[in-house]
């Protein structure tokens, strides 16, 4: 039992140490390039928590991160690497906005319909690599990467040629399909905070409950750990592979709805990827692929992204440096093995 405890402690300590190391190395880099790290981190802090407006923006920012992180983590728990969260996110975004602009319905119908459209689009987009993996053993990493490009350019085509007539913006969705909330905006000094955060929190619970408490989750986890044993036990391995991709894509599509129905209320032609899907990989990794871990690591990413906007203004530190610090944190998380080794040494010494 004591061993169990220290194991849990270690899995919490590891990401925290990774973050601290990222900040320390970031400090060194700033010192070398002639910026004041204290001023920079103060600016970061103020940019995230200094005003209620910023707090609202932080929450708005990490809402899609939670969902993208859940998408990556869910597939990962079943032994699949879904690099296609970005593409599923984009088709989800577009589907939500499309329903948002094409219909004019009462809010109780329109908003859920738009959200479901996003979920369905993301799920469908992930179903394809899932099917190819289950049926023909085509590696999901290759297929999902390629599907990202297909998603990007097909979305752009649809916005230009189907939703609008050679426009580069879908135009705003009807108010009946928005996730925006006058109430949430008013209590956060008119930030863009929207109801999506509730959906993200519910999604965390759904992921935890589905994986840890249901027979379906038992099958999915079995397939993730040992396909042969799952097959031996009478589980349908292929069905579970496809299902896990579909659920993963559904989370990703819902993340798209956060942007399409909440933050932006439109879909525009994009020159490149949004990055939310790829950040989702880092969020899942930092969160140890658990629902609760994803929730907290998404918060950290949201804080860094929003707080960083204040660093050039208040401390004169370029935005790029903030990206470097985030990258360093991810780097240290990815090499968390090293941290674990040190923690093991440390705890061994204590035993003696």
């Amino acid at each position, binding site marked *: 039992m004591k061993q169990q405890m220290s194991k849990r402690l270690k899995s919490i300590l590891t990401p925290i140490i990774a973050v601290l190391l990222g900040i320390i190395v970031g400090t060194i880099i700033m010192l070398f390039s002639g910026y004041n790290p204290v001023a920079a981190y103060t600016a970061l802090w103020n940019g995230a928590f200094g005003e209620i407006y910023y707090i609202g923006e932080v929450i708005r920012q990490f809402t899609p991160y939670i969902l993208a992180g859940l998408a990556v983590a869910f597939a990962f728990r079943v032994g699949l690497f879904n690099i296609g969260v970005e593409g599923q996110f984009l088709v989800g975004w577009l589907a939500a906005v499309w329903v948002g602009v094409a219909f004019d319905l009462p809010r109780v119908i329109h908003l859920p319909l738009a959200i479901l459209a996003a979920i369905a689009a993301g799920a469908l987009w992930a179903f394809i690599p899932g099917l190819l993996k289950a049926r023909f053993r085509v590696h999901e990493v290759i297929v999902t990467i390629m599907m990202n490009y297909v998603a990007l350019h097909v979305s752009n085509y649809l916005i230009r040629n189907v939703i609008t007539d050679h426009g580069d913006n879908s135009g705003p969705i009807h108010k009946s399909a928005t996730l925006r909330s006058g109430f949430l905006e008013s209590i956060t000094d008119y930030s863009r905070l929207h109801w999506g955060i509730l959906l993200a929190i519910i999604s965390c619970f759904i992921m935890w409950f589905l994986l840890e408490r249901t027979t379906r989750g038992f099958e999915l986890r079995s397939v993730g750990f*040992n396909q042969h044993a799952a097959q031996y036990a009478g589980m349908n391995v292929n069905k579970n592979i496809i299902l896990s991709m579909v659920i993963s894509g559904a989370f990703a599509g819902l993340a798209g709805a956060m942007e399409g129905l909440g933050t932006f209320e439109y879909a525009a032609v994009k020159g490149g990827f949004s990055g939310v899907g790829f950040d989702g990989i880092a969020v899942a990794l930092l969160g140890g692929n658990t629902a609760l871990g994803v929730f907290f690591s998404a918060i950290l990413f949201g804080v860094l992204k929003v707080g960083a906007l204040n660093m050039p203004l208040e401390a004169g530190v370029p935005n790029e440096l903030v990206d470097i610090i985030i990258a360093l944190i991810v780097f240290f998380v990815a090499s968390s093995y090293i941290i674990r080794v040190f923690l093991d040494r440390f705890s061994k010494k204590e035993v003696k």
Partner: protein
Amino acid sequence: MEYVIEMLNIRKEFNGFVANDNITLQLKKGEIHALLGENGAGKSTLMNVLFGLYQPEQGEIRVKGKPVNISNPNIANDLGIGMVHQHFMLVDTFTVTENIILGREITSAGKIDIKKAEQQVREISERYGLSVDPQAKISDISVGMQQRVEILKTLYRGAEILIFDEPTAVLTPQEIKELIQIMKTLIKEGKSIILITHKLKEIMEVSDRCTVIRKGKGIGTVTVSETNPNELASLMVGREVVFKTDKKEATPKQEVLEIKDLVVKDTRGVTVVNGLNLSVRAGEIVGIAGVDGNGQSEFIEAITGLRKADSGSVKLYGKELINHTPRQITESGVGHIPQDRHKHGLVLNFPIGENMVLQTYNKKPFSKNGILNFGEIYKKAKTLISEFDVRTPSEYTLARALSGGNQQKAIIGREVDRNPDLLIAAQPTRGLDVGAIEFIHKRLIEQRDNGKGVLLVSFELDEIMNVSDRIAVIYEGKIVAVVNPKETTEQELGLLMAGSNRKEAGEATNV
């Protein structure tokens, strides 16, 4: 007499758990010294101490009388200690020669002189009677030959003392004979050998002396010629062990399993089960004897639904089951103790408790409306763990953390508890110690006595002879003979397994 290795009063702890407690092992020059102990007794720990992978807390190691400090495997290598691992450390896509010289490459101007290396490998292999093809790829050669490559690796590095870690666990009876010959040649050439094993027969056959350890403690060293298997077994287990499995006469009833003209291909598309016919009745144990690679694995996989059969019929109480899914077959009343417990039998990263419901998680009371009931699951697990004597700290411990024998007991508990009409046991005692083997045999016979059919596949002739009521010999994917264990001999079975027909085999053994 000169000792080449002396390990004196070795003590090794892991976080308070004492794996080796005051163990002494002295190896004479030119002897085969067996190290005997149950799974988890501390044999591997002791050898890892000798090989420099672990540092002992207490005790002294002497090589040729001189105290040494072996702090890493390179030092062990330099002292002439070589280890032949149970799980081969070979690069599959490299050739035999490349594997042997790995880390000790002969180079000229930065290029590996593969010709010269092959020549050296050939020389060593001839000197010690280890026939290998230096140019063959590891992935293309048999397990027995891979082991010879492992031995050559240590000899190439100049080993004088060879440690064999459970070397026969992966070998066929023929390969075991060859290995024993090799070990004798090595001794003749002046090497000394430590043989880690829990197979008493091998110890009696090859070793000069034997050191027994039990639960981490050194029990003592005996001269093999002055002892017998019963004494060794009771030293190892700490109590009397019954070798001849006690069982009543079988009372077979109606047919449980009927297999007709079964044809199955292996992964490469070669037909390996070729028109197999077999029947198992309620209340009997049918043993399948055969040399590894005669279609046993594919046969079992086909009748349990893990592999597609090409044609034929598999009936359980008259109900056709061919090419049904594993779940349909399981739920029709078939229990399956799989050949590879890590690959098929367990999800190693699940707690042992969740492994106990691997097939029944979707049934009441373990779940209701798709929601798991962990209370019921762990209650069940707790009962099975105590009933089948699975030694584990708790039912929440990961299956990975259990020893092989306890993992196997857990699987058997799970399969027997479902009370199947037919229990298929594929190599159920592979790699287990005598205590666990005895337990498992008892359970199989218990199933039989409860009127169930048992199909046992094993490469161990002893096991087949001891446990079965009827023996079916498999050769090249067919059952070539069905014999009564009371009316046959190991020689006759051996010949049948090698493809002689019944009449020839009978005559040969009569002469």
